[in-house]
């Protein structure tokens, strides 16, 4: 079954489902005046399964977690955000969050697929045979996925704040969750992101201390800076110094910083790079 397509084809299919979720959500909002909750959720779930298949094939091809180039980093970040959405989307009971998530996932995956240069070089056995380094990288990227979801709830909070201040409560605004609920979910997401990234850094530091040449200072500085920024934001929020709009803007900036940090982190890696031929994993007998 998996051999029916190569990894990029699976990922294109997955992006198609995310995009379909975005289109359906937009159509539903415009034509029916309300978001389509269950169907969008189903499309996202289907896209998630297809993305898992694509990333799985890619993982087999590169001999580890597929985090070896910008394309893979974007794909993994989108996948992480969706993983979390599929869990909290049900608890949060907000169909509009599904619409926003589908939009973000479609943007990240389609962008990464449409720029071939991002997938021009693959790194085989990027993490050698050390599962701890692989865990470190996967946790770090998963925390970026958490920040992606934080950015979405932050955007929703800004929209809710704007709608209440401008007294414009119709259309899309009428489906947004309450300000307090968005603030609380944002706080939980930020806490989760900080803990995940801290764990990732702790795992990576343990390895780095034994072998300082295994990671560049630049990469270390960038990752620590992102974590520090997130930690400071969390402390300020908990102490009541970073609230409402400013907290939401911080959430958006954190995700932007996390995304931007992917390029310098990627380019600073020391690993084996293979030529750019799109990897097709041979079918298993």
């Amino acid at each position, binding site marked *: 079954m998996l051999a029916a397509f190569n990894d990029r084809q699976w990922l294109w299919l997955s992006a198609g489902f995310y995009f379909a979720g975005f289109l359906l959500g937009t159509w539903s909002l415009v034509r029916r005046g309300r978001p389509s909750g269950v169907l969008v959720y189903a499309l996202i779930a289907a896209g998630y399964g297809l993305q898992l298949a694509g990333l799985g094939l890619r993982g087999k091809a590169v001999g580890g977690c597929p985090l070896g180039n910008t394309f893979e980093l974007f794909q993994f970040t989108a996948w992480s955000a969706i993983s979390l959405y599929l869990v909290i989307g049900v608890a949060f009971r907000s169909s509009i969050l599904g619409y926003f998530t589908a939009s973000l996932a479609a943007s990240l995956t389609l962008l990464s697929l449409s720029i071939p240069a991002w997938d021009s070089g693959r790194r085989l056995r990027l993490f050698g045979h050390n599962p701890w380094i692989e865990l470190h990288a996967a946790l770090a990227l998963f925390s970026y996925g958490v920040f992606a979801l934080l950015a979405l709830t932050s955007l929703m909070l800004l929209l809710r704040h704007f709608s209440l*201040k401008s*007294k414009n409560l*119709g259309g899309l605004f009428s489906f947004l969750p*309450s300000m307090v609920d968005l603030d609380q979910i944002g706080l939980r997401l930020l806490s989760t992101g900080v803990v995940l990234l801290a764990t990732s850094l702790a795992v990576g530091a343990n390895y780095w201390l034994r072998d300082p040449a295994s990671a560049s200072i630049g990469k270390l500085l960038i990752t620590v800076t992102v974590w520090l920024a997130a930690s400071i934001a969390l402390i300020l929020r908990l102490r009541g110094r970073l*609230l*409402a709009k400013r907290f939401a803007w911080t959430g958006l900036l954190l995700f932007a910083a996390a995304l931007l940090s992917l390029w310098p982190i990627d380019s600073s890696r020391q690993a084996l790079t293979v030529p750019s031929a799109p990897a097709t994993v041979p079918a298993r007998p």
Partner: protein
Amino acid sequence: MSSPGFFLLGATHQRAPLAVREKLALDAEASAALQTELATVAGLRELTILNTCNRIEFYGVADTPDTLARLEAVYCARQCFSPEEFASFRLSLAGRDAIQHLFEVAAGLDSQMLGETEIFGQVKAAYATAQTRQSTGPVLNRVFQKTFQAAKYVRTQTAITVGHVSIANVAVDLAHNIFGDLKATRILLLGAGDIGEKTAKAFQSRGAASLTVASRSFERAMELATAFGASAMPFDQREVRLAEFDVVVGSTAAPETVVSVEAVATALRKRPARPLFFIDLALPRDIEAGVADLENAFLYNLDDLAKIAESHRVARLAEVERARAMLTEKSAALWQQVSAQGAPQASPPAAGKPAVSTA
């Protein structure tokens, strides 16, 4: 009649003014008496009575048009209402038109407050009562079951019920947009007049549990607080204790504002993580307009709320034709099914006596 004799007979707010509806309304005692009397009406096979403040409607299955005339005569006599006068307000429909009307009633299209959902529960209650009395049969059972499905369909497929159209409920909606669940939301009512009372009722009906009343007359505050199971607070403490509350409803008759920007700014500093929502229903206004400029404070006055309520009403109106078209399609399909069941003679007589529901 070639149809199974499904009919509607009644009077609604569309034609009958309040003074007439008062005379036509059935209280519990009258309901019981009418039920006994209707049992003597020959040819009345099935019956459900929908009795609300805006309508008295008899839905049933009759053998002949004479049966309807007898039903009307019994009802008018019971209510001491002139049959001639009743004829001028009467709504009498049969077959598919009667089904369409019932669909529209259950979906809130025929309500005074367009799109309200309370009527759906009232129709359900009327049908449940009729079932208990065993006065429904194959036709009414099918029609009412399909009515509930059709009303639910229209409510989910159109925006006919979206947004509230009363000022008090719009205010509660706004509070919900800020705080979510209102169970833990603390509400301060400034003023104990009618407007404050209506708003308090709206908040309580949506789950708000913590209400405090502050009025320039402490006795009146105590009175209202007691009526709502709330607590009363001296009026002069309103600004000092502002930080204890999430929602402040101003409805006093004070000639000047009673909550200043400075007091709100101080309160916000004491509770930085939670917003403050002000609903100013007073004229002249109770809350200083500058409060709206504070970062985590939201201020809505009477005009703002009225505009939102009006926009909801207009939005609902825009959905009426779409909703009606959906219901027309469904009523046509149902009428075909009901007609296919056969003439009234094919409907077995109701096992019990016609029932009256005062939903």
